[in-house]
């Protein structure tokens, strides 16, 4: 009795494991018995007139997450005048990358380059130059936070209106001048006009403030800069 029960159990386990395996071999193009039965049933339905009058042609709509082109970054270049205290005014050029956090605020990184001229002392005395040519290179970077204080529109003629904004900017950074890096605080204002949705024209005024001990005594210098720039949103 006991042996019989065990044999039954053994056989059923074999069957349970082997049968799905056999089905795999037998599968493929040969229709499974269940399928045959089903198609037979549907044939029967046809003859009985149960076939729907209009076959619904349902096409699955492809679900795509909306990929919206976000244009929060702004990249551009500028060109202008930088007054280097004691060292004349000179042309300055630079690049600018901004990220617009909201309609009111943005953060901005700028890198600029200029070259210092001669001090009045050097010109008048005819003495040896205070700085050699390499040390007259003036480069700076600034990381700033900006606020679009006065957004608006400008009207050119009767039919054209362009978006604009007057903004305030404050930041920190460093200036490399006379061979050394100097911690620099900068601030200023700017005005931007957008001729199209992706292009902006800027006019900026910045003050770069840092300590310098080049002429013997440590003092604070204010280097004012005014520049025109062009940037694109992406």
């Amino acid at each position, binding site marked *: 009795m006991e042996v019989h029960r065990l044999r039954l159990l053994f056989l059923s386990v074999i069957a349970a494991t082997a049968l799905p395996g056999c089905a795999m071999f037998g599968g493929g193009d040969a229709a499974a018995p269940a399928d045959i039965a089903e198609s037979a049933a549907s044939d029967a339905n046809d003859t009985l007139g149960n076939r729907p009058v209009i076959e619904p042609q349902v096409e699955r*709509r492809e679900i795509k997450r909306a990929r919206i082109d976000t244009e929060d970054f702004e990249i551009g270049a500028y060109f202008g005048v930088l007054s280097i205290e004691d060292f004349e005014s000179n042309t300055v050029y630079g690049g600018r990358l901004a990220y617009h956090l909201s*309609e009111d605020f943005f*953060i901005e990184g700028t890198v600029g380059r200029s070259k210092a001229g001669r001090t009045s002392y050097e010109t008048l005395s005819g003495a040896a130059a205070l700085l050699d040519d390499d040390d007259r290179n003036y480069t700076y970077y600034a990381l700033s936070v900006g606020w679009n204080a006065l957004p608006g529109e400008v009207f050119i003629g009767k039919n054209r209106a362009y978006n604009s904004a007057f903004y305030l900017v404050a930041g920190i950074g*460093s200036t490399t001048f006379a061979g*050394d890096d100097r911690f620099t605080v900068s601030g200023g204002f700017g005005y931007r006009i957008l001729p199209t949705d*992706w292009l902006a024209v800027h006019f900026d005024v910045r003050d770069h403030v840092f300590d310098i001990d080049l002429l013997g005594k440590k003092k604070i210098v204010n280097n004012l800069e005014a520049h025109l720039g062009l940037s694109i949103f992406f």
Partner: protein
Amino acid sequence: MPHWLRPIALLITFFAAAGTQADDELPKILVADPYIELHSGPGRGYPVVHVVERGREVVIVKRRTDWFQVRTDRDIEGWVPRAQMIATLEPTGEPLDLQEPARENYMSRRWQGGIMAGDFGGASEVSVFGGYAFSDNLSIELTLNHMPGEYSAAYSATLGLMHVFVPEWRASPYFTLGTGVIHVKPKATLVQAEDRTDQIGYVGGGIQLYLTRRFMLRTEYRNNIVFTSRDDNEEVDEWKYIGFAFFF
């Protein structure tokens, strides 16, 4: 066309192409609010120039901060605020999924970046940082520092772990630990000083304050150990007085 003009022409066509994208590639939405207002610019003050009623379809051309530029079937373009876009539907009938970095998903923030100003052993310091959060508490952070000091200028890059103790609090303390490299360049006026690069390790802590929308403030202290090639290691106190951070 002269050969030097070619890249410029290419650039212009590229930007022009970027401006005029084919409509069928752009996502379409269905207006579910009684109506949506189209402003002339991406800002709350710009006048409403057009209105689209419920049930009409518009395409989203682009997005700038919280404003969406949409185009109607009559080719009228305007900017719609996020608040109204939430009440629109995708063609499938689902509400438009706009994952927003705002207070309601402050907890699900993953990426953050920011700038900080401080003091590194007496030298002024400018820092930029970016971080990725694995979980609500733990994140990895890369910081680039520039310390233009009185006698030398130093640059450092550090990679560290940051553990925010109670992330759901508006102001939460955190703990940070990491390592990196520091490069010190003595001032030109100093004689016989050499540039040197050393490894640096730090342990520190700070407070992170959630400001509004996607902005945060933070203040941090780090105790640095510079593993110099000399006999003694150097300990430097670093105070990052104030930092401005945003998450996305």
